């Protein structure tokens, strides 16, 4: 059950063996959607790539890391309270912070917070419920705080290496999600838990599509605060 075994199981046939494939499917879906949208009309918007490309790219990367973790949780469905609360908190926080940060950087603090909170609270509840009401509460609180903090951080760094901060934030979030996946692996092996659910690839494709489409629409056409008009 150590890290070495986990890395080995990333190449296996279990739920862990699907993590990298899920990252690939999510990335492929999101980038394909962006390419289609680009050639359907986004390319006519002046300054699209310089203004939004960087944040869109990292938003897409973020979704490609959040969705495998969600799928990993769904594979086992039920966890002990301590693990479930950590799952709800981690996914709620990261799924709130990252969209909040990237949308906050292009649309302002209000809309970044709203989108970040909506995403964080939804995924926090969905994943926190693996241990009942405590996990749900943890997911709601973490999603609420993550969304607000992500957008606030982006605005506070607007004139202070915002892009570099985005890269750092992303790397830290990716490390936390990797840790979460390892924790799930360790908990399920120690408790000898069996896999209870298998999501189709459609799950990843659908969520990647929706999240990327909403993020793109918001960044390019959505409402924004006065600082970004």
């Amino acid at each position, binding site marked *: 059950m150590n890290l070495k075994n986990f890395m080995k199981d990333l190449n296996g046939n279990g739920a862990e063996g699907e993590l990298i494939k899920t990252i690939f499917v999510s990335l492929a879906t999101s980038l394909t959607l962006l390419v289609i949208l680009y050639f359907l009309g986004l390319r006519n918007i002046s300054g699209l790539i310089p203004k939004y490309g960087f944040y869109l790219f990292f938003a897409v990367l973020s979704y490609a890391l959040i969705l495998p973790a969600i799928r990993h949780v769904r594979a086992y469905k039920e966890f002990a309270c301590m693990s479930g609360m950590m799952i709800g908190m981690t996914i709620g926080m990261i799924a709130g912070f990252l969209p909040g940060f990237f949308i906050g950087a292009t649309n302002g603090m209000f809309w970044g917070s709203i989108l970040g909170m909506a995403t964080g609270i939804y995924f926090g509840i969905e994943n926190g419920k693996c241990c009942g009401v405590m996990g749900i509460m943890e997911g709601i609180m973490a999603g609420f705080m993550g969304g607000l903090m992500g957008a606030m951080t982006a605005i506070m760094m607007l*004139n202070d290496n915002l892009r570099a901060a985005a890269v750092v934030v992303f790397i830290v979030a990716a490390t936390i999600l990797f840790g979460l996946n390892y924790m799930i692996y360790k908990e399920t092996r120690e408790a000898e838990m069996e896999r209870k659910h298998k999501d189709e690839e459609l799950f990843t494709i659908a969520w990647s599509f929706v999240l990327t489409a909403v993020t793109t629409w918001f960044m390019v056409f959505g409402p924004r605060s006065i*600082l970004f008009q």
Partner: protein
Amino acid sequence: MKANSFFVIAVFALVIIGGMFLIKGEGTTATGNVVAGNAQVVKMYVDGGRYVLTPNEFKVGVPVRIEADISRMPGCSKSIVISAFGVRKILNAGDNVIEFTPTKAGTFNIACSMNMYRGTFTVLDNNGAKADYQEPQAASTGSCGGSGGGCGGGCGGV
């Protein structure tokens, strides 16, 4: 080759291709440094949470040179945004000048990057008259400016 090895390589390839396509510098974003010839020189400081510009009226099409009194600009009020003219700049004792050319007439906002400290200035049209256009004001987002205290410490901490 194992299936997951393929996916690892594919993920890296997608990241690199996507990054090459999407990551480009914000080439058109102004930094507030525009070379000015016969600039309109303006003095600026903060009083009671608001930016005070003297004079407060500029001519359209003529470069403006705002010289800030840093000693009277607390906290995040040094991080200036004039969104109407693409100006974003952090002022400090060694670089306290913002230069830009107003390209349209009307009343415009100047704010700190967190929109706590705010102010307005007017750009007169070619005839020296005030234009009707008024840039909308954002809703109040905090109370830092009112106290004149440092935003970075007071408001930022959540």
